[in-house]
């Protein structure tokens, strides 16, 4: 185990799940819903989320936290704001893209931005389970 990983395990730091803000896109809303499902229901004891805007601002505490923690970013569009903001803050995230999950579930139906609807909630659940698997992989790697 590398020194930085050993430090994280010793500190018992939760995995940070960080969705994009996606205020204009339905997939942004899904990334957000899936993140909350993970941190509130699927893996509440070992994950947390934080505000992505803190990284855009360059908030020192938030930047330090993503550098010292394992981070999973969840992006709703190819610009990958969450991943890029974490990388520019010095973090090395595992990246999940909503589109990759959606490709396997095209039957999902119409999804809105403000209200993602039943189809959006189904997709968010699938995405959340994918994120939870990644959380488990990361924790298994860290022993």
């Amino acid at each position, binding site marked *: 185990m590398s020194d930085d990983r050993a430090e994280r395990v010793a500190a018992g730091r939760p995995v940070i799940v960080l969705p994009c*803000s996606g*205020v204009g896109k339905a997939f942004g809303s899904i990334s957000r819903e899936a993140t909350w499902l993970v941190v509130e229901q699927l893996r509440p004891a070992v994950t947390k989320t934080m505000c992505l805007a803190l990284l855009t601002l360059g908030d020192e505490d938030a930047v330090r936290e993503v550098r010292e923690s394992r981070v999973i970013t969840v992006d709703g569009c190819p610009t990958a704001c969450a991943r890029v903001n974490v990388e520019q803050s010095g973090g090395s995230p595992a990246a999940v893209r909503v589109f990759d999950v959606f490709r396997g579930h095209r039957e999902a139906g119409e999804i809105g931005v403000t209200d993602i609807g039943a189809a959006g909630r189904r997709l968010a659940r699938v995405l959340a389970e994918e994120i939870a698997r990644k959380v488990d992989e990361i924790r298994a790697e860290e022993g």
Partner: protein
Amino acid sequence: MLPGRVRVKIGLIACSGEALPGGTVTRLAVRRVLEALRPDDTVTLCLPLFLAGSERERSFAHKFPTITIDGCEKRCAARATAKCSAPPAASLIVPDLLAERGLPPPRELRALDEAGMRATDETAAAVAAEVDRLLAEPRA
């Protein structure tokens, strides 16, 4: 509008704070202004695009008089907009706005509770009023 005049649009930037109920309120309030209250007069941008996007995104607050809407006193949207683009024309902070009106803070992140829905209504109305004020200002 006079022929040849460019229609001014107002930029809206929500903090969208994923980790706090006020962030959800900012996001929903901005969506309501964009979709229902002032659809012809407003545009938006995802705040993290200031870092992840190009010069085009970073020129947003130069191009559009911008209103930032923040869910907490850290004011990430207002400060990041000023830092990465240009100072916003107006800034709203949800807890301040609710305190002025004697309303309780929202407590739920995902499905807004009654306080969250009321906060969204009030924030959206305040943003729409700021849009009207900025559009009424004389321009060079």
